[in-house]
């Protein structure tokens, strides 16, 4: 992608999303959006802000609280040749529509021998850290990554958010697009530098299956995604002061995983820590550890480190929640343990 300087603006994550949707809807009539409060409200986490006014209620459709119904309808509409974008407000609600998502959206292309294409983007907000408790704070990256037939992405920075959303919309496969609430740059949540970044105005694509080295280093590879990438970068700064030079990989794609980037990094650093805002067991830390333990075993000089939510529901009280979601401090400690082996 060529960047033309004058065409770059600083945008928040949510504005980057809305811009991606707008630009694609401008050029493709078959795209429409469905979801709860994605109309006038503009999406609870700003994913569709401004689009209702631009495109009207036929293309930006508020729905009843009927996730099985409208996510299922997206499948039916996609099979007819439309390109629905559908929002599941919080990923935590996936259980009310999971059958449509994994038994149908994910499998129909395969079960039809490739004859039915389902170009659907399923938007969904993930993440905790603001005391929204057990039913509104999850990421569930692995719950989606485990199931074949879905591409699952979780970009961190506005540039990637726009580029991966455009790529997702243009993809002819179902794509689960997870956006992290705290990285949307909303006025009513924590203000993070990471949620505000340079975004070219023109449309561009960022591939859906590539991780990105967001900081290079030699001593240890830290793989994170979304807020864990942000925390890993913070940790890397602290570690640098302690003489440990960490390489930080922003996973970006939950499924498929970009093995190459991770393996190459570990080949260089010989140490790996995986950090996840999802639950520990059967999560990202499991999958990436397994990839490296089976395909990059000889690169490793030390046991692999895993940092994730320790298999408990996410508690409400701030002191409790802070104790279960990994952060830069915990990352620093884990890395120090790792490289001291």
């Amino acid at each position, binding site marked *: 992608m060529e960047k033309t300087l004058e065409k770059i603006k600083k945008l928040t994550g949510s504005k980057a999303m809305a811009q991606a949707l707008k630009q694609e809807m401008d050029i493709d009539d078959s795209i429409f959006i469905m979801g709860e409060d994605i109309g006038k409200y503009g999406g609870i986490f700003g994913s569709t802000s401004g689009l209702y006014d631009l495109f009207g209620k036929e293309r930006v459709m508020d729905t009843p609280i009927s996730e099985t119904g409208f996510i299922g309808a997206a499948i*039916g509409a996609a099979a*007819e040749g439309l390109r629905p974008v559908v929002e599941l407000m919080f990923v935590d609600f996936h259980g009310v529509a999971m059958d449509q998502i994994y038994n149908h959206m994910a499998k129909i292309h395969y079960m039809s021998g490739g004859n039915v294409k389902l170009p659907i983007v399923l938007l969904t907000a993930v993440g905790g850290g603001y005391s929204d408790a057990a039913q509104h704070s999850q990421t569930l990256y692995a719950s989606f990554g485990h199931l074949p*037939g879905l591409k699952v992405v979780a970009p961190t920075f506005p540039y990637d958010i726009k580029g991966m959303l455009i790529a997702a919309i243009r993809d002819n496969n179902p794509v689960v697009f997870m956006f992290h609430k705290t990285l949307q740059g909303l006025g009513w949540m924590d203000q993070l530098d990471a949620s505000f970044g340079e975004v070219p105005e023109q449309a561009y694509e960022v591939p859906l299956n590539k991780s990105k080295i967001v900081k290079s280093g030699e001593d240890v590879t830290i793989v994170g995604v979304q807020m864990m990438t942000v925390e890993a970068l913070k940790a890397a700064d602290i570690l640098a002061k302690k003489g440990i030079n960490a390489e930080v990989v922003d996973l970006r794609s939950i499924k498929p995983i970009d093995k190459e980037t991770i393996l190459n990094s570990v080949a260089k650093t010989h140490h790996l820590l995986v950090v996840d805002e999802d639950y520990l067991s059967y999560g990202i830390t499991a999958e990436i550890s397994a990839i490296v333990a089976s395909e990059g075993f000889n690169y490793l000089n030390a046991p692999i480190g895993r940092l994730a939510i320790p298999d408990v529901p996410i508690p409400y009280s701030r002191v409790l929640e802070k104790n279960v979601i990994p952060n830069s401090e915990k990352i620093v400690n884990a890395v120090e343990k790792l490289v001291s082996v």
Partner: protein
Amino acid sequence: MDNIRKKDLLWMYRVMKTSRCFEERMEKEYLEGKQPIFNIGSGPVPGEMHLSNGQEPAAAGMIVHLTKNDTVTATHRPHHEAIAKGVDLNKMTAEIYGKKTGLSKGKGGHMHLFDPKVKFSCGGIVGAGIPHAVGAALANKKRNTNWVAVAFIGEGAANTGAFHESLNLAALWKLPFIVVVEDNSWAISVAKENSTSVPFNCTRAKAYDINGYYVKNNDPVEMYKVSKEAVERARNDEGPSIIEIKTDRYLGHFQGDPELYRNKKEVPSLIKKDPISKLRKRLIKANYVTIEELDTVDSLIIKEVNTAYEFAKHSKYPEPAEALEDVFC
């Protein structure tokens, strides 16, 4: 026969009979490699097999009003609708045999038949096809067509959350959508009175402010009439409908079902009033057609069915490695 076009009645007879022939043959073929000991995973047609013998009027009486632009979603018991909708019989049979020439190159099987050319699909999860048809109806409306979408379901599926959410959406958005409930009295072993708090699912239309219709006695001609009205309403942007038809399941839920839960006398009494035989008699009695003409139709059907089975049996299996293809496009 009440001003119904002869052409339509004959069409209905033909598809009902085709489905019946196809399935009677399947009933036998399915047992190949499963005798003397029945093993569901053995033989050239392995896996579950749900046959629709007895339920043909539901499919024929509705689909006679549809064109290939109209969408149909069906269930785990899909053959009668697939055949009525014009799914390629050779490819469908080959799919059931797990062959490379099948609709899905052997990846789908009998519960997962997809023929986008005639806008037909089905699936193995009860209730799940209803929102798909709602989505098709939404697409139809968005594109300003007058095409309709019809979801066929069993009476058991009317108690799923998907039913309610879908009907509410379709009614709210006034979509060209119809759900046909085939009440065959059973959801596997659970009788309707043990699953459904109302005697008739068409009553549930009131919960969405839409039209509800009931067809008694597994009657294809009544089904024809009621469906005609519902389809016309849908095409004229007058909103969705629920049609419930009382129909009959002659066989077990799936082949191999011991049916210990069912009175042994039930099926023989049902077969006595078989809708295909009855329609045959009515056609002849009304002088729409002679016995000889119908015999000719029947023999053509048998030929078509035989051809499909021959095609399926003689087709090649996919290569094992093809299992890894078609996850993404």
